[in-house]
C-alpha cells in the first residue's frame, strides 16, 4: 500500500528550494548544475565535432560499420521483445502478489544492474558454454550458443532486462487497484482486466522501461565480448566494433560512436516526448 502512495503523485509537485524567490532559485540551481551538465555534454560535443559528415558517409558504406549496425539493430530488437514477453509475467507477479521469496526475486533483478558486465559474461559462459552446466546438454544435441548472434541476445537480455521489469513493476503498482477490482466484480476475467484496464493505464511506464532495456542492450559490451566473442557480421555489435576499431581505424570507431550517440539521443528524446504527451492527456481526462 505504501509503495503505491510513493509511486504515483509526488513527482509533479514543485521541486524548488524552499525560502528562495522562484526565479532566483532557478538561476542559482542552473548555475550550480552547470558543471555537471557541461561535464556530460562536452565529451559528446567533442565526439560529434571530430566526425566530419563526409567521413561519416564514407565509413557508413564500409562493410564493418554496416555489419555492426545491422547486427546491433536486430539483436537489440530481439532482446527487447524477449524481455517484454518474459518480463511482464514477472512484473505482474511482483506487483500483485505476496509470496515467499519475493524479496529474493526482487533483489535478483537488481543484481545485473550493479554487476560488472564481465562477470555476467563469464557466468553465461560457464552456464551456456560448450562445457557449461546447461551448455553441455545443448552441445550433445548439436547446439552451440557461444560465438553466435543468439549469445549476443542472451548477454543483452541478462544485463538489460531488469530495466524493463523494474519499470513495469512500478507502473503496475501505480494503477488504481479499485478500478481493477470493480472490473473484476463486473465479471471480467484476470486476463481481460490486464488487457482492458491495467495495461492501457500503465503502458507509458512499460514503454519507458522497454526503451531503457533497449538502450542498455545497445550499449552492451563486456558480457558480449566474453560470451559471444568478436566476429564481424556475426557477433561484433557496434560497441565491440568501436572498441576493436579504436586500435586500427579511429575513423570507423568515431563514426560508429557518433551513430550510437545520435540514435540513443533521438530515441530517448522521442520516447520522453510521447510519454509526456500521454501523461498530459491522462491528466486532462482525469480533471
Amino acid at each position, binding site marked *: 500500500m505504501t509503495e503505491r502512495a510513493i509511486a504515483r503523485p509526488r513527482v509533479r509537485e514543485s521541486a524548488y528550494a524552499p525560502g528562495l524567490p522562484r526565479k532566483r532559485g532557478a538561476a542559482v540551481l542552473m548555475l550550480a548544475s552547470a558543471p555537471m551538465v557541461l561535464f556530460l555534454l562536452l565529451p559528446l560535443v567533442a565526439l560529434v565535432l571530430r566526425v566530419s559528415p563526409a567521413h561519416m558517409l564514407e565509413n557508413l558504406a564500409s562493410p564493418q560499420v554496416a555489419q555492426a549496425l545491422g547486427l546491433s539493430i536486430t539483436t537489440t530488437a530481439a532482446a527487447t521483445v524477449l524481455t517484454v514477453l518474459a518480463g511482464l509475467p514477472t512484473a505482474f507477479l511482483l506487483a500483485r502478489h505476496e509470496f515467499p521469496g519475493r524479496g529474493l526475486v526482487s533483489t535478483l533483478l537488481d543484481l545485473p544492474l550493479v554487476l560488472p558486465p564481465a562477470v555476467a559474461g563469464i557466468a553465461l559462459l560457464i552456464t551456456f558454454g560448450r562445457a557449461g552446466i546447461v551448455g553441455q546438454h545443448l552441445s550433445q544435441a548439436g547446439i552451440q550458443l557461444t*560465438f553466435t548472434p543468439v549469445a549476443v541476445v542472451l548477454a543483452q537480455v541478462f544485463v538489460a532486462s531488469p530495466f524493463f521489469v523494474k519499470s513495469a513493476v512500478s507502473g503496475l503498482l501505480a494503477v488504481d487497484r479499485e478500478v481493477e477490482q470493480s472490473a473484476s466484480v463486473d465479471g471480467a476475467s484476470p486476463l481481460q482486466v490486464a488487457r482492458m484496464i491495467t495495461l492501457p493505464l500503465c503502458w507509458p511506464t512499460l514503454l519507458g522501461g522497454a526503451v531503457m532495456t533497449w538502450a542498455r542492450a545497445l550499449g552492451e559490451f563486456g558480457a558480449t565480448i566474453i560470451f559471444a566473442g568478436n566476429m564481424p557480421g556475426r557477433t561484433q555489435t557496434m560497441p565491440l566494433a568501436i572498441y576493436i576499431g579504436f586500435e586500427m581505424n579511429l575513423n570507423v570507431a568515431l563514426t560508429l560512436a557518433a551513430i550510437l550517440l545520435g540514435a540513443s539521443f533521438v530515441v530517448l528524446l522521442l520516447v520522453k516526448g510521447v510519454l509526456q504527451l500521454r501523461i498530459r492527456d491522462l491528466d486532462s481526462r482525469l480533471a
Partner: protein
Amino acid sequence: MRLRALAALLLLAQLLSGCSTPWGRASASRNVTLYVFAAASLTDAFQQIGRGFEEQHPGVRIVFNFAGSQRLEQQIEQGAGADVFASADERQMRAAVRSGRVKPGTPRVFARNRLVVIYPRSNPGRLRGLRDLARPGAKLDLAAREVPAGSYALEFLSRATRQYGTGYRTKVLGNVVSYEDDVEAVVRKVELGEADAGIVYESDVRQGDRQRLRVIEIPADLNVLARYPIATLEGSAHPGLAREFVEFVLSPDGQKALRQHGFLTAAQQQKRTREGR
C-alpha cells in the same frame, strides 16, 4: 548574479586546469610506484620479474597494466602515465616511437616467442595436425589482427599455404568463430572448450594449463618468431628507475624468469633458427 556566475566559471576553469597535474602518482613520497605496460602474454613472467625487482629495490612498487600491445600503445599515445612499455611486436613499439613517447633507437628486444596451436584435452574438433584447421566445421579462435598474436597467426597461415596448398589460409580463416582482443582470451576460450583450437604463443601454455590443453607444434620453417621490444617512456616520472627495470629484464635474472615461462631468449633463438633452417 554576474559575480556569482564569474566565480563559478573561475572555479570550473580551475578544476579543468587542475586535471592536467598527474594525480594519483606517488612521485613525492618515499614509496615510489613504477608503472609498467606489458603485453598480455608477458603476464606471468613479468609478475615474477616484478617481484624480483621489488626485492632488490625496497620502497619501489611495480604496477603492471597487462593488455594487448595495441591497446597499451593506444593508451600510451593518449598520454597514459606509464614508465615502461614492453610490447609483443615491433609494430606497436614503432607506433610508440612515432607518437614521441619512446626515443628512437632505444627499444631493445628482450624476448622471443613462437606460435603453437592449442586445443582442449577433450579435442572436440578431433584435430590431429595443422591440416585439420582447414577442415570445414572446425571452430578456431584467434587474436584480432590488430593484436600482435593475431597478426603473427595470419603470417603463419600465409606461410602454411605454401606448404598445404592454395586455399589453406582462406579455409582456416573461414573457420574462425571469434577474434579476441588479447591472446590470453584465446587461451581461456580454448581451455573452456568453447573453441576447437586457437593459435597462441608457446609461452601461453603454462604448466597448469597442460592438464586442460594440448599443443600442436608448428614447424620452424612455417613458424613466426615474435620479437618483444622493451623501452622506457618519455615523460616518465622516474626515468632512472624505469631504465633500471629495463636492465633488470635484460639481466640474467630477468632472462631466466622469461625462459621459465616458455619464452626464448636472444641466445636460444639463434640456435633454434639455425636448427630450423
